[in-house]
Structure formats: structure tokens, C-alpha cells
């Protein structure tokens, strides 16, 4: 008995959470996929009707807007956050004074929830009492910065707020990477008289490749999950111009009583996530086997 327990203890301990994940994550993913092929409205129905929900989804202008916004938001958010994060990390890496304090300052936004970030930026970007009002009060009467209430530009305000929140975290990732680069190589390069910018672009940054990959994965999944930031910052508006797939799904499921549409949009989101994550997992596993 004791022997048996000793042999299998790890499996026994893990089993409950394994079952829970199997049911509550994968089970409900399966359920959602099933529901997306039904005509469920207020309550779930279980008669399969084919791909009607998907046909409707892709002829709804609001979904087009949501999907477009997701691509705009993800691309800009990931690229800008990485660029700013890398620059901050390189500058902090110059053996400056008070590095600890600065690092904390840049990292702190990550400790705030997206709701707080969104609310704060809503006030900062509000034309009547934010940046526009301040600059105008300095005497620049024709200054305009009304992206928040401009349906063409509002999605970019979401990017600004998200970048502000996440770039400190990216900086921390890169800083750890920079510190782990082999100092011997850098010293050798310096002895050879190679300039600092050249050392960074030729040696250090290429050696950070795995960090880039982690940063992209973390930021991309943040952007697909983004929901609270949009709700707090713009509420999806003006109109529905800052809708994201997540907010679209929420609206359909909880305020429109259209469970079928919500399920099909959730499945499309899942597909997007899978398209990002699976190549990453694949490359990770292959690397381990080698």
C-alpha cells in the first residue's frame, strides 16, 4: 500500500486539477463549439443547423470592425511595446545611477489593472479636461487632440494606454536578457574597437531572440484578451468603433440574448489564439527533444 502510494503520489495529487481542467476548460470549449452550430438565442438549444451563425457573423459590419480593430491593436501594441521596452532596457543597462528606482518606476504600471489604466487615460485624453484642454490653456488655441471621441482614431487611444501599461514589463524581460549576455564576448568586441551601437545591433540584440519570442507571445495574448481596457477607456465607442472580438462576444451573450452569435465569435477568437500559440508550442517542444 505504502509502496503503491509512493509510486503514484504525484499522479494522485495532480488528478483532481487535471479532471477539473479537462471538464471546465476543454469540456466547455467543446460545448461552445457545439453551440456555435446551433440557433441558440436566449437559452442554449441543441439542434444542429450548420454554419449559419458563422455566415451571419462574417456579414455583420460590427464584427468586421471588431476584427479589424483586433489586428490594428495587436500589431501596433506588440511592435511599439517591444521597441519602447527594448530602448528602456538598453538605457537602464548603461550602469546608470538609481537604476533600481527607475526600474521600479517603469515596471509599476504593470501592477495596475487595466480598468484603472483605462479610466486614468480616459480622463487624460478627454478633450475637455485632459491634454487638449491643458495645451489650449497654455495659449495654443487651435491645438486638437480629440482621438478619444473621433471614431476613426479612437482605437489608437487604446493602443496608447495598453503600451503605457505593458512596456515596463517588456523592459524587465529584456533587462534580464541583457544581463545574461556573456560579458566575455562584449569585452572581446570592445578590445577589437567595435563601437557600442554596433555591439548592440550585431551581438547583443540577436542573442535576445528567445526574449523577443516570449515578449511577442505574452503581448499577443494580452491583446486578444483585451476587454476591460476597452470597456473602461471608450466603452466600445464612439458608436462601436473600438469594439474588439471580446467585447462583441460579451454584448451578444449578455445584453442581446444571442448565445449562438456569441459562441461563434468565441470560436473565431479561439482559432486566432490557436494560430498564434500552436507554432510556438511546436517550436518549444521540438527544441526540447533535440
Amino acid at each position, binding site marked *: 500500500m505504502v509502496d503503491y502510494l509512493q509510486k503514484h503520489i504525484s499522479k494522485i495529487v495532480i488528478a483532481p486539477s487535471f479532471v477539473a481542467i479537462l471538464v471546465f476548460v476543454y469540456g466547455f470549449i467543446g460545448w461552445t463549439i457545439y453551440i456555435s452550430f446551433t440557433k441558440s438565442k436566449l437559452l442554449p438549444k441543441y439542434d444542429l443547423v450548420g454554419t449559419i451563425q458563422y455566415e451571419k457573423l462574417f456579414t*455583420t459590419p460590427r464584427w468586421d470592425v471588431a476584427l479589424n480593430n483586433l489586428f490594428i491593436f495587436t500589431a501596433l501594441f506588440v511592435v511599439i511595446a517591444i521597441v519602447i521596452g527594448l530602448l528602456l532596457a538598453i538605457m537602464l543597462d548603461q550602469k546608470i545611477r538609481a537604476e533600481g528606482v527607475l526600474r521600479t518606476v517603469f515596471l509599476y504600471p504593470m501592477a495596475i489593472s487595466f480598468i484603472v489604466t483605462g479610466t486614468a487615460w480616459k480622463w487624460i485624453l478627454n478633450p475637455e479636461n485632459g491634454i487638449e484642454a491643458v495645451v489650449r490653456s497654455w495659449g495654443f488655441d487651435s491645438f486638437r487632440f480629440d482621438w478619444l471621441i473621433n471614431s476613426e482614431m479612437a482605437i489608437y487611444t487604446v493602443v496608447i494606454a495598453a503600451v503605457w501599461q505593458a512596456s515596463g514589463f517588456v523592459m524587465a524581460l529584456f533587462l534580464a536578457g541583457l544581463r545574461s549576455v556573456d560579458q566575455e564576448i562584449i569585452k572581446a568586441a570592445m578590445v577589437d574597437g567595435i563601437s557600442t551601437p554596433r555591439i548592440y545591433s550585431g551581438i547583443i540584440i540577436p542573442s535576445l531572440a528567445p526574449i523577443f519570442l516570449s515578449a511577442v507571445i505574452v503581448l499577443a495574448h494580452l491583446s486578444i484578451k483585451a476587454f476591460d481596457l476597452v470597456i473602461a477607456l*471608450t466603452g466600445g465607442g464612439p458608436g462601436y*468603433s473600438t469594439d474588439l472580438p471580446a467585447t462583441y462576444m460579451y454584448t451578444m451573450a449578455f445584453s442581446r440574448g444571442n448565445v449562438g452569435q456569441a459562441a461563434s465569435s468565441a470560436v473565431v477568437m479561439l482559432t486566432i489564439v490557436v494560430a498564434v500559440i500552436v507554432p510556438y508550442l511546436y517550436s518549444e517542444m521540438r527544441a526540447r527533444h533535440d
Partner: protein
Amino acid sequence: MSLKKLLIGASIASSLFASTAIAEPKVEVLHWWTSGGEAAAVKVLMDEFAANGGTWTDMPVAGGGGEAAMTALRARVLGGNAPTAVQLKGPSIQEWHEEGALSDLSEVAKAEGWDKILPDAIAKIHKCDGVYCSVPVNVHRVDWMWGNASLLAKADIKMPTTWAEFNDAADKLKSMGITPLGHGGQPWQDATLFDSVLLGVGGVEFYKKAMVELDLDALGSDTMVKVFDQMRKLRGYVDDNFSGRDWNLATAMVMNGEAAFQIMGDWAKGEFTNAGKTPGNDYLCAPTPGGGYLYNVDSFAMFKVDGDENQAGQKLLAKLIVGEKFQTAFNLSKGSIPARMGTDLSDFDYCSRRSSYDMAVSSANGSLLPSFAHGMAVRGVFSGAVTDVVTNHFNSDISSAEATKALVAAVKNAE
């Protein structure tokens, strides 16, 4: 005293207790009236229910204009444990009826003579296949226009009776440097404007065809293009910073003289009243241009429940809700008017009395219509699809013709 005696005594006591519990009416009420005035209004009902010997289990679910409450309701119904009474609105009563979840109130309805005291149009939405399954609590009028009395006097403008008059008045106000229309750019508020414009520009028959019957020809007609044209005009009358503003802040703009008009349901009146303003002196109320009356009714739907005490509680609750005492007390707190016709209105203000009078007139001539913006006309899927088009048009620069086309496509797609 022996142990045996004690046990017998205890069992007698418990059986007595159990028998009184069966006779006692019980309800569990799911609602989302949690803010100040609304909570006070619910308290009125709770006290009256208790005074009639009932036990009230309160189940308030705050947030999201009832979205959170609806989610809770779905979970409860799917779990086979529905609350006794649930705050619901218009067509969603029918949606729940189709799920077979609502109970039959015809006994109370007959005893209380509801068919005589409720306006036909409003009675209809509370019936499931001709049988009462829910009760109205109040009637909000949606097509109200609120004006700042002193601003309008300064500009020498009367409350407009046609949209052309409104446009002239708004142009004049704009040239004086006054924001003509206080408005908050949230989808439901844009839809509230659309409600009034559609009724005013299109007329009663057109409104019925387009928003109640969802007739595709009406939705795609030239009249609809004109409706969107007027919406575009209204867009020009709001201030630059309207996006995302809450409705009560827009009301405050009218109150403080920052804007001349607001088009909003009579819950806006509550804001004026709370700020100590009186109708006629500080602010003016008038129906939006064009005839008709758009209602937004809050209802309680009675769900199928087991147990005599629950069913007794359900009937008592339904009777009390439609009763004169509750209808008066509740609506004085809430700012709406009683759904019950012929209620004594001497404690109500001018705007409410006017609303009540107009409701009776409209009910008689068939122009008592459900508000689309507040989910009274059609189901959530359709009203949501229409709202998307309306708010997209209002917040972008697409043409009226394009918006009309998009409207038809959206309604078709929501089927």
C-alpha cells in the same frame, strides 16, 4: 419533564410552525433597482407585501442596466430553480414564455379586472398567448424633450412642435453660442434620439411598420432616409465632447444652462426634481415633435414555481403591484407614471399628469407605441442590430442612404 414529553412537545411545535409556513405567502424577487430612488421605490412594495403577511426574499443584482440580473436569471432557470418574480421588459417576457418558464395569472387578473384598468397596448405585452403572465409596474414616456426655461426665454424660443421648428430653434441657439442639444454619445442614447425622430418624421403608421413589424420595405424606404437626415442634423447640434457622456450629465447641462434641450425619457425628470427644479419655472417639458406616445414599461414576470406558499406569494405580489396604492407610491419615487389608468394623480407634477393624459388619448386612438431604443418594440437581437446601425451613422460620416441600406441588411441578418 421527561425526555419523551419534551420530544412530543417539540414535534407539535415544529408541526405547528410548518403549517403556518405553508399558509404564509412567500416570494423571491429578482430585480436591478438598487440605486437611491429606485431602491426606495422597491421598499414601498416590500413593506406592503409584509403588511399583507408575506415573506419577501430580496435578490437585487446590480449592474449593466439589468444585464447582470439577466445572466443570474438564466443561470437560475437552467438550474431548475427560478425566482418567483423577476423584473423583465417587453418582448423578453415573450422570449421567456417561449421557453415555457412563466406562470398563469388569469385568476388574479379576472378578480382585479386588469383588462379594464390597463391600456390595451400595455396589457398585450403582459400576456402570454392571451393570458396574463406578468404585470406592469410603471410607464416611462421616452419621447420627451426637456428645455432650459431661461435659455429659451432669452432666445425667444417656444418648445418646438415640428422638427423643422426644432432645427430653426437649434440654428438660432447655435448662432448665439449655445449648445442646442445636450446629449451623451452612448449607443442607447443615440437610439433614444432615433426613437423620437422616427416617430416625428415618419409618423405613427411608419413607426409601427418599421420598428414593430420590422417591415423591410419600410426600413429601406425614402422616409427612412429622411429620418437619418434629421439624425445627421441633430449630430450637428451636440457639443464636441458628447462621446460616452452619461445621460444624467447631459441632463445637468440643460439644468445648468450649458445646453438648451435634451431628448430623453422621463427618468431625466428625476434629476431635475432632485436638484430642486420645478417644471414650468426652471425647465420645460414637452413631447418631441410629431404625435404619438412611446412607452417604456418596467414589468415583473411571474415564473413557474412549486409550493403553495410560493404560488400564493406570487398572486399576492401581482395583485399588490397593479394595486393603486403601490402604483402611486412607486411612481412618485421613480418619476414615471402609473400603468393603471384612472389613478389619482393629484400628488404628481405637471409633466407626469401630461404624460398620463397623453397616454389615455394615445391608447384610445392607437398611437400608443413601444419604444425601440428601450427594447420594448422587438427582441434584443433586432433592437441591438438596429442600434448598431443608428449609432454607427451618428458617430461617423456615412450617408443617410448608406445607413438605410445597412439597416435593412442588419435586420435581415438578425433573423
